[in-house]
Every structure is written in C-alpha cells, then in structure tokens.
C-alpha cells in the first residue's frame, strides 16, 4: 500500500506557492516527550513479556493465551501499519475517493477471514503442537515440501516487507523527530529488537493492544477536528464539488476498472497475510472468535476515519484556498495535524505512526524467525534443539538484514515491498484459504501452487524491476500471480484426484470438516 501511495506521490505536485510540512522548533520538545512516554510504555511491556517468555510457544504464539481484545487490536495494528496515518491521507488527497478502495475491503474481509481461516487454524492448533502457518500446511498435506515452500515464501516476503517498513521508519524519524534517516532506521530497528527479542510476539501483541486503542482514539479525535476545519462534512463536500467534482465520484481520479481491481485484490489478498493469520493461533480458546470480526471491523472503521478525514479536509482546504497547495503529498497528514489539531494530539499521532511501523516489523520478524528456525529445518527433516534461543537469534538477523536493505537502496525497498505482498497472497491463499476448506485439495496441487506462486511473483516482479518487461496499466503482478497459483492449485488437484483429507489422522480430518 505504501508503495502504491509512493507511486502516486511521484506525480507532479503544484509548485507555485506550495507549502511543506515543517515542524515548528517549539513543537519538537512536545513531540519528543510524547514519543518518550510511548517508548517507556513499550519498554515496560517488553520487560513484562520477557519475564513470561520461557518457551518457543511463548515466543512465537504468546503461549496461546491472549484474549479477544488483544487479538482484535493486534490484528488491527498489524493490518493497517503506517499507511492509514501517513500514506492513506496523501493517497486520498491525490486520487480522490477511489483511494478508499484500498481500505473498504478491510471491513468485509475480517468476517471472511474468520469464516475461511480463523476457526480452522485455531482448531488445528487446539489439537496439534503447531507454531506456524507452514506447520499447518505441512500437516494438511502431509508434505514437508509444501511446508518448506510455504516457509520460503514467508521468509522472502517478510524481509521485503520489513525493509519497506524500516525505511518508512527512517523517513518518520527524519521528518518528525529530526533524526537523520540512517540513524532513524537503526534507532527504530533497535527499539523493535528490544521488545521483539526479549518478549517475542507476546511483547508485540500487548504493545499492539496499547497502540491499537491509541490509534482508534486518536483517529476519532482527529476526525472531530477535520469536521471543525472543514465546517462539517457537508462543507467539505460542497467546497470540493465546486472546484473538482470528479474527486468525489465513487472512483475518484482512478478509472472504474482500476478501482474495482483494487477492491478485489485487497479483498482476497488479505487472506494470505501471514502476520495477521498467525495471530489466530494465539487466542486462548477457539470459541472466543465469536465476536472477533465485529470488534475488529468497528475498530478498523474508526481508524479509517483518520485517512478519510485528513485526505478530504486537506483537499477542501486547498480547494477553498484556505491554505496553499501541498508541495509534497507525503506532507498531507503532518500539515493537517500541525495546523489544525492540538500539538499533543499531533504528537500522539506522530508517535502512533512510528509505533504502527514498529508493530508491523515486530509481527513480520516473528513469523520470519519462525520460518527460519522452525519450518525450514523441518522441511529438511531436521529440528532445532533450542527453538527459543534460535528464534531470538533469527529475529536479530532478520531485523538487521531488513535495516541494511532499507539503508542501501530505495528502489530495492519499493521492489521488495510490492514483491512481499504479492508473494504472501499468491503462495498462501490457495493452500490455506482454499485448502483448509476444500477436501479435493491434493498434496501435488499444494506443492505445484506454492512453486507457481513463488516463480510467477518473483519472475514478473524481477522482470519489471529490471525494466525488461512491464504489465499493462491496471494489471498488477500480484493479481496475475494470485490467479495463476489459484488456477494451478485447482487444476493440479483435479488432475491428481483423491484428496489427501482421507489420509489424515481422524482428529485433523474432523477439525477440517467441522
């Protein structure tokens, strides 16, 4: 999502009398003070979680003991990341209402993922000692190859995604806190490592809980200031309609086809996001999932208000000539916050942006470390003796790799970010979303689909990155790879008929059928 926003952000911005977000010198102490309070809360959570992390199950699955609220806000924080606060308002300001197609599916896909994945994943974790999604893939298909390929897809995608997040952290540290980008990358990585290594995912989950509540509350408050700045939603709409009515058409400045494609890709693609699905294993008791979709949807709607509100208000303020045009679209949110909300609220949102990035990095590094130390050795018939220690070491190694990547090349970061999302979706959606619910799925179908997802995503993205080949406008490599891996999964499963469900132990079979 950040990458898409960046692509739009590259379009020419109005140059004449444009304004940039500059943090007033007097504001910086407040912003830094709020950030320090946030860091103190994170540190306290890390210490608390670290004392309670004694096993690999604690480290990777929070001891399978989190409650409904913790799951809700952890899923919220992992799903939205910094995009909603920073990239989202810029994107809406540039693309109009069509930008909402990125976030609208999120409201529906919570229930979809609960029906399709949450129950099955949690039931398998109820009866078997699973730690990871590839564990479930391995059990479902009775295949170490499938488990290994799923782990490989997660590992490759995780490093890419983390690099984009860490690079974003560097930008935030630079523009908001006044640290140079390189220092920002390493300081942010160090903070994440401090709690990711000591408290594992348990620290991440409870940090997300605090951060998710903060995100939702700050978003609602900011929206109230949006209404005040624009003289209500009707005032905002009237101002925009008078100057640029296309902005408020359902597709905004997008073509209808591109907007609907976005909706479809994000509806289905969310079913393959390992850092969110992984959290379904962690809830204390499977029946607590009952209210999860409704709670997380309400929380997401509240958080989406900030993206919608700031993007709309800034467009109206510029259209009504109340403020000059925005020189750099990435400044849309900071400009509104600094100009139209109390400094403390702006500081909370700035800290929230950094916190959102760190929470995503923590989630990714945890699933990546599990893939590296748990799944890949198992795919080769081996197991790591002290998974907790090796999990911690892998966490450090992956975070450092992501930080190095982020520091070395901006172009590589954008490539890896796009590649990561596509890879997760094309590799995991067929084998998990379909495979856990369709008895006709076969081992050969799973292995072929995983291999196809990896090959098509890697091939297309690499060719596009090298400039050898590019897809027509509106067609994404992620969508093509997802369609291909789904087709391969269904096709090969039909050709190698005789689903593997009947070969499964009775308890696993029952978990997939009930």
């Amino acid at each position, binding site marked *: 999502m950040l990458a898409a926003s960046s692509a739009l952000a590259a379009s020419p911005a109005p140059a004449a009398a444009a304004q940039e977000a500059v943090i007033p010198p007097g504001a910086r102490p407040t912003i830094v003070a709020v950030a320090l309070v946030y860091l103190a809360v994170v540190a306290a959570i890390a210490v608390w979680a670290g004392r309670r992390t004694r096993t690999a199950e604690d480290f990777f699955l929070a001891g399978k003991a989190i409650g409904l609220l913790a799951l809700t806000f952890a899923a919220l924080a992992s799903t939205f990341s910094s995009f909603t606060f920073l990239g989202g308002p810029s994107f809406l300001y540039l693309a109009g*209402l069509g930008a*909402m197609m990125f976030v*609208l599916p*999120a*409201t*529906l896909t*919570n*229930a*979809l993922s*609960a*029906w*399709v*994945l949450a*129950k*099955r994943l949690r*039931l398998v974790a*109820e*009866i078997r000692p699973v730690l990871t999604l590839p564990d479930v893939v391995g059990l479902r298909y009775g295949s170490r190859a499938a488990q290994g390929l799923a782990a490989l897809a997660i590992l490759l995608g995780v490093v890419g995604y983390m690099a984009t997040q860490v690079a974003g952290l560097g930008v935030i540290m630079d523009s908001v806190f006044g640290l140079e980008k390189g220092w920002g990358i390493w300081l942010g990585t160090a903070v994440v490592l401090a709690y990711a290594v000591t408290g594992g995912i348990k620290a991440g989950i409870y940090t997300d809980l605090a951060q998710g509540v903060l995100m939702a509350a700050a978003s609602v408050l900011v929206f109230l200031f949006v209404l005040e700045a624009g003289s*209500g*939603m*009707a*005032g*905002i*709409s*009237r101002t925009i*309609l*008078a100057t640029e*009515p*296309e902005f*408020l*058409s*359902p*597709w905004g400045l997008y073509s*209808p086809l591109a907007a*609907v494609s976005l*909706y479809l890709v994000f509806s289905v693609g969310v079913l393959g996001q390992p850092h969110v699905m992984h959290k379904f294993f962690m809830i204390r008791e*499977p*029946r607590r*999932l*009952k*209210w999860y*979709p*409704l709670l997380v*949807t*309400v929380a997401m*709607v509240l958080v989406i208000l900030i993206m*919608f509100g700031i993007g709309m208000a800034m467009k109206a303020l510029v259209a009504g000539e109340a403020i000059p045009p925005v020189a750099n679209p990435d400044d849309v949110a900071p400009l509104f916050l600094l100009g139209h909300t109390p400094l403390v609220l702006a500081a909370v949102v700035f800290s929230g942006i950094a916190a959102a990035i760190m929470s995503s990095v923590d989630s990714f590094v945890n699933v990546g470390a599990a893939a590296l130390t748990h799944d890949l050795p198992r795919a080769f018939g081996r197991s790591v003796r002290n998974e907790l220690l090796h999990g911690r070491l892998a966490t450090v190694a992956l975070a450092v790799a992501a930080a190095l990547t982020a520091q070395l090349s901006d172009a590589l970061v954008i490539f890896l970010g796009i590649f990561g999302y596509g890879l997760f979706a094309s590799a995991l959606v067929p084998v998990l*979303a*379909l495979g856990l*619910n*369709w008895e006709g799925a076969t081992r050969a179908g799973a292995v072929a689909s995983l291999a196809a997802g990896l090959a098509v995503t890697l091939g297309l993205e690499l060719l596009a990155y090298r400039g050898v080949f590019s897809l027509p406008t509106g067609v994404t490599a992620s969508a093509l790879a997802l369609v291909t891996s789904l087709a391969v999964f269904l096709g090969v499963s039909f050709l190698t008929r005789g689903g593997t469900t009947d070969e499964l*132990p*009775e*308890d696993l079979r*029952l*978990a997939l*059928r*009930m």
Partner: protein
Amino acid sequence: MLGARRHGRVRPGVGWLFLGTAAWVSGGLLALLALPGVDPADAPLVLGLPRRAAFLLLGVGLAPGLVVPLAYALVFDRDTLPPDDLARLHDVARRVREEGERAGDTADGDRGR
C-alpha cells in the same frame, strides 16, 4: 461459502447471507459503474456526501462490513463452532494421541526385544 461448510454442507441461512452479500457488493459496484457523470456543485448530499459517494462508502463499504460480522456472531454458536463440536474434537484428539502413544510403546517394546 467454503469456509462456512460444516460436515460438508452450509446452513441455508448462512448460504443466503453469502449470496446476498456478494450480490449486494457486486450489484452496488456495477450500479455505480453504470451511473454516468460527476455530481454538480449543488448535488443533494447524504450525511454530508454526494449520493453516489455516500452509497459507495456507507452502502457498499460499511453496511456489509457490519452486517456480515454481526451475522457471524449470531450464528456462531449454532453454525460455526457449537460447544459440542469442540468437546467432540477434544475427545477424538485425545483418542488419537493415546493410540499413537500405545503404538509408540509397542514399537519401543518390539525394539527392546
């Protein structure tokens, strides 16, 4: 629809919910595609938004996003994960584990001889 299957079938109410939601969302998007042009400056507003924008955000985006999760919660005890199902799964898992342990003991015994 696949995800709502229990023991190979989907309860009619849940099936209709999925079909209705799919029809509502796709029908809504198609209707928006079919409606031409842009809204004039004095276009009537619904909750502060032009009608088509309000329909997209509130009708296609928000409404199913609240109705479907609410339905999920309401049918959960009966159609998604009844308490009896979970108890039965625990029983079967215990039996499979015990059989596995017995088979392991037998194999160990055989190796001992």
